[in-house]
């Protein structure tokens, strides 16, 4: 049976309002806001959804691989409840603030330890640091082909066929297996999980590996110099007056045609 490994990072909910986001400029990291729940990174959810869509029509096994400093069980269980067959966690204090290079090495070692696989799915980038690098490091380390920004993938005659998003349309590309595919929001949002499905997986044990299990070694290819809230170019907004929406619209038209050169 074909085996898909989906790499999923757990992060602080990226939908957090701007007002609660603060950076610790001295230590070059964000200050975790209180009360914001940990979730799977948005694009990694798209990757899991792409795998679940394959499983609807083709027999396959899905393993979710997650790595981080702490991996809340409730988040990992969601993957099981949605239809992942296995979840593997790689957890430890070593995995805080990692360089993409170190992360890719450790994940590649974890993938080798999981064993045989046909496809690796990841999100296009983490929805926290927006780096977009780890997938490439995994493909390079495992020496497998990769296809970026898929919106759909399926097995066909011992290959994978992927529709990928390019700037002016959709390209169909096929690849020998094993291969790695990255996904983005074009796949569609991850399906909802039902309470009964969550209850069913509550007692499932989730294997946890440590840094030494994946021969973790910290490497730094990038040196961070500064982390700061950018000048968003806040401007004084002229609020167009009017007694009714229609009148405001008319006043806006007058104002713009007078003041803005087009």
């Amino acid at each position, binding site marked *: 049976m074909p085996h898909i490994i989906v790499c999923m990072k757990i992060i602080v909910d990226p939908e957090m309002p701007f007002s609660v986001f603060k950076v610790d400029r001295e230590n070059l990291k*964000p200050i975790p806001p209180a009360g914001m729940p940990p979730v799977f990174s948005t694009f990694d959810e798209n990757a899991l959804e792409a795998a679940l869509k394959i499983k609807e029509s083709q027999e396959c096994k899905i393993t979710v691989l997650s790595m981080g400093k702490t991996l809340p069980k409730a988040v990992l269980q969601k993957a099981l409840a949605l239809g992942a067959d296995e979840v593997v966690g790689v957890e430890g204090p070593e995995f805080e603030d990692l360089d993409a290079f170190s992360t890719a090495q450790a994940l590649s070692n974890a993938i080798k330890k999981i064993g045989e696989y046909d496809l690796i799915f990841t999100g296009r980038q983490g929805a926290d640091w*927006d780096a977009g690098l780890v997938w*490439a490091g995994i493909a390079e380390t495992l020496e497998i082909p990769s296809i*970026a920004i898929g919106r759909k993938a399926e097995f066909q005659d011992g290959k994978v066929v992927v529709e990928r998003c390019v700037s002016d349309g959709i390209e*169909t590309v096929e690849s020998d297996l094993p291969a790695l595919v990255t996904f*983005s929001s074009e796949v569609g949002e991850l399906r909802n999980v039902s309470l009964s499905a969550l209850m069913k997986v509550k007692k499932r044990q989730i294997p946890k590996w440590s840094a030494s299990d994946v021969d973790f070694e910290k490497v730094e*290819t990038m040196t961070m110099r500064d982390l700061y809230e950018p000048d968003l170019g806040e401007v004084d907004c002229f609020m167009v007056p*009017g007694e009714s*929406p229609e009148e405001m*619209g008319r006043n806006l038209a007058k104002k713009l045609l007078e003041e803005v050169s087009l």
Partner: protein
Amino acid sequence: MTECKNVLIFGEMDGESLSSVTAQVMRIGKALSGDLNEELHLLLLGSDAQGAEEGYGYGADKVFAGTDPLLENYLTDTYLQAMEQAVGELNPSIILFAQNDKGLDLAPRLAFRLKTGVALDCVDLKIDGGVMVTVKPVFGGKAHADANIAESRPQVASVREGAFDPADYDESKKGEVGNLALSIDGSKVKTRFVKKEKDESLALMLKLAGANVVVSGGRGLKKQEGVDLIQATADLFDGAIAGSRPAVDNGWIPNSLQIGLTGKKVNPQMYIAVGISGALQHMAGCSKSKTIVAINSDEGAPIFKMSHYGVVADYKEALEGFNDEVKRIKG
């Protein structure tokens, strides 16, 4: 190994002209090479090299072309091999890409292959003490991170579309295109191009790329009919329509017209945001517009902090009034 030197740009053609994103990367590439007192090199890969000499007009000190029939369609497998060989030959200190479907794919794989550091989607690049500093939005644009590549060379980065104006073009500047001999090993190519379907909304997309006025709809449109209304507004200015991620997810606006962090970046004379709250992920695609106008029923929407003109109202009636008045004034 000889010392690595010069700024190398992975260039792209749009037909027989240099693509506009490549011209943008040329502007920042020229600034970096100037600061370093090094040369700016432009590399074009493909099945032929027609139009490559245009790179001189945009300020390249040398233009190189690497041609091979296997490079007709973009595939990571073939382009990665070609880039690896080109880097071996040219030995640059910096390699720049545009952050588009090719750059976001090729730049990180090349960097990992060369065992060097890389930063994608940079909005600024500068030289400090001979080293390239990358400035990159993180956390959906809530913060910016400045970094440099630690010890390894070359330094690789991709540049956000729209972050820089295209380099100035001087048609008097001409030169010979250097031929870069490549040998792509077909046995290492594991992926195959099957087909390409141009987006159904290609005409709309081309319109968006060159539009002076963009009218963009968001979650607040509430329904498909709202698109007809913003289209009517766009038509009054010979402009284009676009949308935010929620408008795309609801199926009101085609995916290829999505403005934002993971979508298109535009900087028209006027950007009219209709029913868009102003999430940073969206603003990443339009904040460089000359004039931003927001129409939103929520007066607390963050978009008003980033707009020059604001209307707090139901968009439907407001836009109908707006369209009527524009027609009346323009006659």
